[in-house]
């Protein structure tokens, strides 16, 4: 439309004018500032390297940490160290008791967290309808996950150790730890159950199966890799956790090896804790602590590798 209002009729002059209008500002902008662009690109590259350094910083620290600990443990970590009982003489000391304590603790933690955790996840994902109870449980689990572990220690001390009169036994420690790692199992199991596609459930219902049969025969078998991965992650958290057990009053000077769930016990992290504290008196304890850390980290590494293998190998894609 031109000035006179003649629609669909464009004069040659108009075209010329339009062309000029379109090109003129562009010509002005073409004279950009090369210095400024170089500055911007330079800044970008600088920032890139800065961000890279901050990522690498964490990894370098990890390297130093592992190096320090491995070097500290050399000469101290041998078969004798794994099979000897605790001793006040650094040369004779071993962590058999702590290893057995950790194993016993896991015998309590694994079944309890798996049963309660998976059941909670099944309730939330399969049975619960949108409502107040479901919301309360969900909010509760996410908050429980962020309660400091030392608070769980106070809970264990009061309820399991004192009220139920279990003392600082393996049972009391195991129950406390189970509650601590429960949210991890619940969240992992929820994700595993959620990843089971709806059409499999519908197919099961279509065949006349009821809800429980569907869950037991269809949903659970498919989500087992995810559940096991979550369980292993929670176990490795429980193996490394120290604070709740210290609060529970788990002693370190246990000369005898635990034989039952009511026995007193010690675990690897607690052994590390006391040896670290006592380096002031006996400097050799630092090496013992390093050696125990190596054993602990290797255990965790194996567990996590198994979790990753299970996740990659058995996870079905639909």
């Amino acid at each position: 439309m031109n000035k006179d209002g003649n629609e669909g009729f464009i004069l040659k002059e108009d075209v010329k004018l339009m062309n000029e209008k379109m090109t003129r500002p562009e010509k002005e902008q073409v004279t950009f500032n090369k210095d400024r662009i170089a500055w911007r690109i330079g800044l970008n590259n600088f920032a890139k390297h800065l961000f890279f350094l901050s990522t690498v910083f964490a990894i370098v620290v990890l390297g130093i940490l592992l190096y320090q600990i491995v070097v500290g443990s050399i000469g101290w970590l041998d078969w004798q160290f794994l099979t000897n009982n605790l001793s006040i003489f650094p040369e004779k000391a071993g962590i058999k008791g702590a290893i057995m304590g950790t194993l016993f603790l896991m015998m309590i933690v694994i079944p309890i967290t798996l049963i309660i955790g998976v059941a909670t996840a099944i309730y939330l994902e399969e049975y619960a309808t949108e409502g107040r109870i479901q919301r309360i449980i969900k909010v509760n689990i996410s908050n429980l996950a962020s309660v400091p572990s030392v608070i769980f220690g106070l809970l264990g001390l009061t309820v399991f150790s004192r009220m139920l009169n279990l003392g600082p036994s393996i049972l009391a420690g195991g129950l406390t730890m189970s509650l601590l790692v429960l949210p991890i199992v619940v969240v992992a199991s929820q994700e595993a159950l959620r990843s089971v596609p709806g059409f499999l459930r519908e197919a099961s219902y279509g065949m006349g199966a009821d809800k429980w049969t569907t869950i037991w025969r269809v949903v659970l078998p498919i989500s087992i890799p995810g559940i096991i991965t979550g369980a292993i992650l929670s176990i490795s958290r429980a193996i490394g956790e120290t604070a709740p057990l210290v609060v529970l009053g788990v002693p370190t000077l246990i000369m005898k090896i635990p034989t039952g769930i009511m026995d007193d016990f010690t675990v690897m992290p607690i052994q590390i804790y006391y040896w670290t504290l006592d380096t002031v008196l006996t400097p050799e304890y630092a090496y013992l602590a390093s050696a125990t850390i190596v054993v602990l980290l290797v255990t965790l590494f194996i567990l996590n590798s198994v979790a990753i293998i299970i996740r990659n190998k058995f996870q079905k894609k639909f």
Partner: protein
Amino acid sequence: MKALGVIHPNSDRSGEMKMESNNVREIIQQNIRKKNHFSDKLMPKIFLFMALISVVTTFGIVYTLIFDSIKFFSQVPISEVFSTKLSPLSKNPSFGFLPLLNGTFFTTIIAMLVAVPIGMGAAIYLSQFASEQIRKILKPVLEVLAGIPTIVYGFFAYSFVTPLLMKLIPSLGAKNVLSPGIVMGIMIIPMVASLSEDAMNAVPEIMKEGAMGLGSTKLETTTKVIIPASISGIVASVVLAISRAIGETMIVTIASGSAKNFTFDITQSMQTMTAYIVEFTSGDAGSGTVGYYSLYAVGLILFIFTLIINLIAQYIARKYREEY
């Protein structure tokens, strides 16, 4: 209806179909009769019971903390709690919790000064700059860092970082706040990095491409588009990191010591709330003494702190989330 292929009622085939369908219906009816829906009625109740265990745990925590804190506050006046003198084991015990709050405050601040810049840098690098191959290598290593037990960090802080810092700062005590603060920050880096990275990755690709298409560099895209768009997630990750730092126990117990002085000197030992709980329970705190109940009072304060901070993080993540 023709399209659906309705079979003529008189044809032989339809007779067959009818019989079969009757059979199926009968089978279904029989099945329904056989089953009295026992499992479908009982199972939800069993699972609900299991699910409620976690709720009971929370109530258990709140109950034990409040119940024993009441005993503490009935014996110790509130004004004493807000004093700076903490000497639970002396003949005239005094329970001023300010030194503990002070210690927790300083370790948390130092940890945040380390964790937030480095964690954010790592998050930006991994989500915006890194190639897929580099990402595949770096991300698992950061996850390893996150999986190391805190007791190991405690040992590292006490036996490596503190001696190292002593060379730089000669006046540094064997137990101090600086070293565990720094190590705690390193421990929290993966948490800040991975949560912030998730938030940044959630920004739609279109926005990023739009900014790049207008000629901005990656840095400008990040600072002017990605970070403003994911700020709620980033802030939430920092707030969660603060909560983690406040609740962290073993690093500060080992490396920060148990001095109960009210001081602002980070080269000296300070006790945090968590370290106080550990020190007091692993010592011989007899049940029933005021000192024993003071554990629960400190625990209650710690619990309330972390709870409030977590609720704030959840609120920020929900309220200020940009929906695309």
